[in-house]
Each structure stands twice: as C-alpha cells, then as structure tokens.
C-alpha cells in the first residue's frame, strides 16, 4: 500500500514526489521539500434575517523549496502533473549552482502523528442544510436577547483538507487539518446612538464544536459586548497601570515578545531580542510558552509545514529567555533542533518561523488582589488587533472593551482605545500574574511577510505597571 493516502486522489505518488525532489536538487541545493495542499473552505453568511449567501473556495497546489545555506529558491503551481511539478522544482533549484545531489527514492512515513483535532464527523460529510439552523438560531437569539439590537450578521466557516510534506532527507507526512469559525456581529441603537460589537469562536474541530454551552456563550457575549458600549466612555490618555483580563489578553504576548522571538528576525540580527537568550527579561514568576498541542485550538498543529514534530516550546522560563521559535533554516543556523514553528499560509508561500498558541502560565497572584492593587488604571477585556515593530520593540494592541480602575475597583466601562508599549520594557513591568489562565477561543489570525496563519493566545490576569494608553483627555 502506498504511504500517500489523501493526495492519491490527485495522482500524487511517491515516484512523483521523488522525481520532484530530484529536480529540486539538480543544481546542488543543500535541502529541498515539496508541500502539497488541498483545502476546501465553505462559508455561509446570514444577514437581515436570512442565510442568503454562500462562498466555496477550493485551493489545490504544490510548492517546491530549495535551500542553499541561508538562501531559498521557491516555486509553486496548481498543476500537479509530473511535467508541471518538475518545471516548478527546476525553477526553485536555480538558487544553487553546482552538481546535482541525490534525492531520496523511498520515504520514511511516521507511523502516527499526535491527534490534536478530533472530529466526530469530517466536514465533507456535513450537509449544508445541517449548518443553516445554527446561523438562524444564533440570529433569532441575539435579536431576542436585547430589543436595542437592530442588525445581526452571522458568518460560519468550515475548512477541510490536507497537507503533504516530503523532504530531501526522506521524511513524508500527511496531515488532515480541519478548521471552523463562527463570527457574530450585532448593531444596536439607543437614543439615536449606534454601537457595533460581536464575538467569535474558532477551532480545529468539527460540527460538534458548536455544543449548546458554546452557542449560549456566543449569543451572550455578542450582545453583552455591544450593549456595554452605550455605557462606555473614552479612556484617559497617558501612562497608566494596565490590568489585562484572563484570555484574549494573550495578544500582549503575541505582540510584545512572540514576534520578536521568531528566529528569522534574530538570525538577521534585526530583533530587539537578538542577543538576549539566557538573560533574565521578566520577573521569576513569568513563564511563557508557544504551544502546538492545545487540543482543538485554532493554533494547534499535529506537525508543522516542514514536516517537523510540533510540541510545547518554552519561550520564557522563570523569567529567563529560553529559546527562539525555529523553522528548519534558523534551527540549522543556530545548530539546534527545530521547534516545529515552520508554518505557511499555503502552497504559494515558503515556511517562516511562526507562533501557534502563545500563552503565559499561571502565576502566584489572585485576580481580585491584582485589581485591588491599582489606584488609577485601566482593565482590558476584549481586543481586535495588534502590531509590533520587531527591532524598536514598540507594539500596540487595540482594546474594544475595558474598564477604568479607580481605587482598586472597576468603576466605568471604556471602549475603543489603543495601548502602546515597548516589548522588553513591558515584560520587565509585568509585576503580578494571577492563577486563572484562560486560552481564548477566538478566531485569531497572525500576519507576517504577507502570510496569514491561524493562531491562539491566552493569559492569566496580569498587571503591567505602566503602558501608554491612547485615549482622550487627561489621565
């Protein structure tokens, strides 16, 4: 029996893969891999009370990468015929210029991968009619929950498909990678004012992901996060203590340290963390990981897009920077084992070191104690987006909902404020960490070099002694 299961339906065989790798190494590259991808995404959207639009996207293609030293040649095609694949491999091969190197004719296929995305039923077997009641039910319940709601949109997505990676050192691995996402947005009116809010959930899971308690939460949070905006005012401007709620506040880690720890930036000497491995950068109770193994999480993977095992990577251990996030090129450059962070958006992109699920482990403090410790500051609950300058270390995250903290109490809601800080400075200023770690269930997507990949993030309640709050008026 062939070792290739999923991609056999497209005529992909070990001989085809071996031929492509042989062409890839025809000019003396050190290393080569081929990455096949098939992904079928189905989107259903409800607007103005009806599921009245559907979108289907079929992606199918193959990328061939050749590495020579730190240099990469890359080609890709949607045509999986032997001739097209060979031509694509020869294009990538041109990064090197030397005698051909031998390519493997047989592959080692791992007997089993971890099983981090368990589905009761594959998405291919879920009929569209079965999905519609989910969207319609959420719509009806959001309207019923608050008479101020005037518009609701619900967006549902499922993805099915697989990747196949085969490398010039003889590994071949296939991984089936499901994904689903439900996004609810609602618009409410009160006294001539309008506010829009929402909630979303995502995971590498099947239709059973939408268990009653999760759907209840989607409805409840979408309404609550919108309604509170009518009570909310602008945040103050200036430097203040900031408390981050447990959960999606993990965006702080993603921006303040995660990107700066991606090894490609350090290999190029352009990250603010480029010479800090082994150094203390935070209080001893700060532990940060990037984890492929959160079962069912949006950021979970069984194997990375270079075919390397993906597990739990300790970024910061007891306040000390432990390791970067590596892909194959950077791991070779630093002489360490890959950490399973080589990821790509799809077959049209070479892999890069990327985060998976990034979070901080629980610490010694209590949530109440942290809030009570702040005389005047802000408490951040929900976020939309963030960004970082890798070298200067400046980063931002945008707070959609939060609270003002006055004399140790949450006093009034605030909204729409950007927070800005500097990565290493902020990590030094994380001075309280609670025991209530939560991994957010939202549909986060990380962009880098024009490539988007799904990620997760989490945090226990944390206090940062000072950050710049981009609000209005005087602090």
């Amino acid at each position, binding site marked *: 029996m062939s070792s290739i299961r999923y991609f056999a339906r497209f005529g992909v065989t070990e001989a085809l893969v071996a031929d492509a790798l042989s062409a890839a190494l025809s000019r003396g590259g050190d290393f080569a891999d081929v990455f096949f991808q098939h992904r079928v995404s189905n989107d259903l959207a409800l607007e103005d009370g009806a599921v009245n639009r*559907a979108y289907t996207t079929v992606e199918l*293609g193959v990328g061939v990468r050749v590495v020579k030293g730190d240099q990469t040649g890359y080609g890709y095609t949607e045509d999986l015929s032997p001739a097209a694949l060979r031509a694509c491999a020869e294009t990538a091969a041109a990064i090197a210029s030397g005698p051909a190197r031998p390519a493997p004719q047989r592959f080692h296929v791992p007997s089993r991968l971890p099983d981090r995305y368990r589905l009761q039923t594959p998405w291919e077997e879920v009929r569209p009619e079965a999905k519609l009641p989910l969207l319609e039910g959420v719509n009806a319940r959001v309207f019923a929950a608050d008479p101020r709601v005037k518009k609701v949109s619900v967006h549902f997505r499922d993805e099915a498909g697989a990747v196949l990676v085969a490398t010039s050192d003889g590994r071949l691995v296939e991984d089936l990678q499901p994904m689903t996402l439900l996004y609810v947005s609602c*618009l409410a009116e009160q006294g001539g004012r309008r506010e829009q809010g929402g909630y979303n959930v995502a995971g590498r899971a099947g239709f059973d992901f939408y268990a009653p308690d999760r759907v209840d939460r989607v409805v409840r949070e979408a309404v609550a996060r919108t309604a509170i905006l009518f009570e909310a005012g602008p945040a103050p401007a200036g430097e203040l203590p900031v408390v981050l709620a447990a959960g999606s506040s993990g965006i702080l880690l993603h921006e303040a340290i995660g990107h700066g720890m991606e090894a490609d930036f350090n290999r190029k000497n352009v990250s*603010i963390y480029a010479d800090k491995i082994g150094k203390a950068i935070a209080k001893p109770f700060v532990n940060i990981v990037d984890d492929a193994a959160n079962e069912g999480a949006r950021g979970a993977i069984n194997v990375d897009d270079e075919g390397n095992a993906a597990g739990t990577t300790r970024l910061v251990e007891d306040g000390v920077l432990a390791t970067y996030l590596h892909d194959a090129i950077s791991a070779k450059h630093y002489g360490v084992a890959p950490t399973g962070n080589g990821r790509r958006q799809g077959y049209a992109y070479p892999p890069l070191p990327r985060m998976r699920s990034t979070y901080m482990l629980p610490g010694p403090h209590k949530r109440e104690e942290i809030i009570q410790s702040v005389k005047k500051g802000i408490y951040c609950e929900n976020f939309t987006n963030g960004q970082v300058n890798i070298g*200067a270390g400046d980063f931002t995250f945008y707070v959609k909902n939060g609270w003002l903290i006055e004399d140790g109490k949450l006093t009034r809601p605030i909204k729409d404020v950007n927070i800005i800080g500097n990565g290493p400075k902020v990590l030094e200023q994380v001075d309280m960490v609670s025991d209530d770690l939560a991994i957010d269930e939202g549909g986060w997507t990380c962009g880098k070099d024009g490539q988007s990949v799904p990620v997760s993030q989490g945090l226990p309640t944390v206090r940062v002694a000072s950050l710049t709050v981009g609000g*209005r008026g005087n602090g």
Partner: protein
Amino acid sequence: MASDLLKVAEETVALALRKGAREAAGGAYRVRSVEVQWRDGQLEKVTEATTRGLGLELYVDGRYSAVSTADLRPEAVEQFVADAIALTRTLTPDPYRALPDPRLYEGRSTLALDLEDPRYGELDAARRVDLARALEESARAVKGAEAILSVTTGFGDTLGESARVHSNGFSGARRVTDFGLSAQVSVKDPDGRRPEDWDAAGGRHFRALPAPERVGRAAAERALARIGSRKGESGRFTVAVENRSAARLLGFLLGPMTAAALQQKRSFLDGKLGAQIGSARLELADDPLVPRGLGSRLWDSEGIAARRFPLFEAGALRSYFVDNYYGRKLGMAPTSRGMSNLAWKLGEHGQDRLLAELGEGLLVTGFLGGNSNSTTGDFSLGAQGFRVRGGQLAEPVGEMNLSGNHLELWPHLAGVGNDPYPWSAARTPTLVFEGVQVAGT
C-alpha cells in the same frame, strides 16, 4: 493572450447555466510573478510562479453564491459547478440578488490606460538581482551607515491576466503589469534598540520606477533618523501626517462610505450625503481612468463601466461607494463597489513649507496598529515620527498614540500638501490637522 481566459470564463458561465443557474458571472485569471529578495550582501530568496484559477457567481432560483477553485481538471470543474449549484439551492432566496442592469455596462471608456508594460518580457534573472543589490549598496553608502545592522531589499514583478463574463452581456479581459522596488533597513541605537524603516516604489511600467539608489538611500536615511527616538509628551498638537502614511487614516474615512456599511448601519457617515464632513480643504474624487494608475480600470469588479465621481467637494460628502447588491437594497444607483485611484485637490506647498507654517507640533511618519470604529467614527492609532519645533523637524518620537473621532478630525484639516504619494492608488498628499489628542508620557 488573455483571450484563452475569456474562453474559459465563457465556458464556465455556459456550464453553470446548463447545470441550472438562471444567471452567472464567471472569471478566470493567470498571474506570473517573480520576486527576488536580497539581504546583507547575498541573495536571500527567489520566488517564481505562474498561478491560475477561476471564480463563479451563481444566481439560482433567486438564491446566490460565489465560488472559486484552483482545481481546473475538467472533471473536477464539472463536479465543482454541480456541487455549487446544489449548495446555492439550500439557501434562502434574496430578491435583491441579480446581475447588474446591463445598461451599467454601457459607455465603457475607450481610453488607453496603458497598464501593461510592453517590455515586461525583457527583464531577466540577472537584472532583477542587480536591482536588489543596487538597493542595498546605496543604503549602505549613506552618511552614518556604520550604524546599519541589516539591509533587506527586494524587486518583484508580475504580469496579471484576467477575464470576466456575465450571462447578461458583459465581457471584458485585461492584462496588467506591476514592478516594485523595496528596501528595509535596521540600525543600531546606542540604547540597545534596533529601529527600522523602509522605502519602496512601484508602478505599471518598469521605466517609470525611480532609480534603486534613491529608494535604498531613502530607506537608510529614514531608519538612521529613528536613532534616539523617545516617547514624547501627551497633549493636543497640530499634527502633520506625511503623504505615504496618510492613506491609512484616509482609509478609515472611506471604509464607512460603502453601501454595505450604510445598509448594515455600521457607518458614521450614514445619512450624511451632502453634509460638511471635512474642512473646505478636503476635496477628492474617485478616478478610475488615470493612465498607468495603480487602481485604474475600465470596469469595476462587477462589470460596471468605470467613471470618475466626486467623493468630497470643499469638505461636503458627495458620493458613496455603491455596489450593485447593496445599491438595490438601499434604492441607490450604483457608483462603484470600491476605490480605484484618488484624485486630490492639492495644496500649493510641500511638506517643508507645511511644517514651517505648522510651527509647533508633530510629523507622523508611520502608524503602528490601532483601529477605527466605523459605526461611531472613534479612532485610536499608534504612531511614530518627529517633533516639529519652530517650524523645523526636531527629535524623533515613538511609542505615541493619536485618538479622536473622524467627525471632529476632518473639520480640522488645516493643510493639504502638493505632494501626492506616487506609489499608491490613494495618492495621498501630506495632511495637517489641528488640535489632535496625542498620548505619550
């Protein structure tokens, strides 16, 4: 030629009708792209590919879906279309879904937009690498270059071919080329940080690009100017936003001008057609018919014949971006689904003179994250740039934030430069705003 794509689009539409669609729009594309990246004295990465696919919008029994596939094996396409039609039949009918009125296809301009460089095929691998190398060499030749830690440069070019066919009479095909140069420079700040900045240029014709030396030098000078950056103080300031950064701010004003945002009540500009939104200096139009323009087109993404229309005149809102579907829902005539090129009423002076007139304030040279609430107009944006003192650029500042509401910001537009940023479709000039809330220390 794109004529083979036109044939694919026609055949796909015909297949959809055979399988039961009442109407259909089909599109096919093919893109050839080459990208060379160079870093610190050697080639870093070369990516080269020809990619293709097709898309289909289906109108079946009053229901709508849009699908696309890269799996073009004939038997796969046949099954794909059949599945898509079955999927569409499961949805709720929507009386507003139909192809555009064919009259909107009429009157297509015959202007030669000159979007394809006839000499595209002359570029070869060696020339691309030479350009990327020249970008780095010029970056490293600037004064103060010993502080440079790393230079990454790139050159890329694409030839895009596409065709679109509607079952009610639209058909069009086009070929466009794009060429781009870029340079990113990281420098060592004595305080341990590694600030970076970039410069880039791109256009439809290779010979219209600036010399790589100019781009490389600008990137290095910009990065070196970030050394010593500190957080400035909080307060209300007059803020100039340099031309290339102004597009982000403007995007938050244009986004809520779409019919989709209006119909879904997610727009702070709802009900404001004809109202004064900005100061009298805010005057711009959407102009799809600019020769060689990065957003130029003879028809929009729905086949509607492209024409110029005003967005703001002396600060008053004149048009929304109205597409076919939401236009029907709102009872508004379509203009275009989205922005093409912007044509600004420019001011008389460049950035230097605007800063001299500004006196005390800030020049923003980059935004970092942040967001804008399209429903309320509230925004909060990370920013870096320079303090302006006595009408002159002073120390670099970073880790700052601008906030406010668009309905308060644009009436305070006090200056518009004569310097549209040439390498983008938005062609934003330097913009000066008074009384902006800035957060820092």
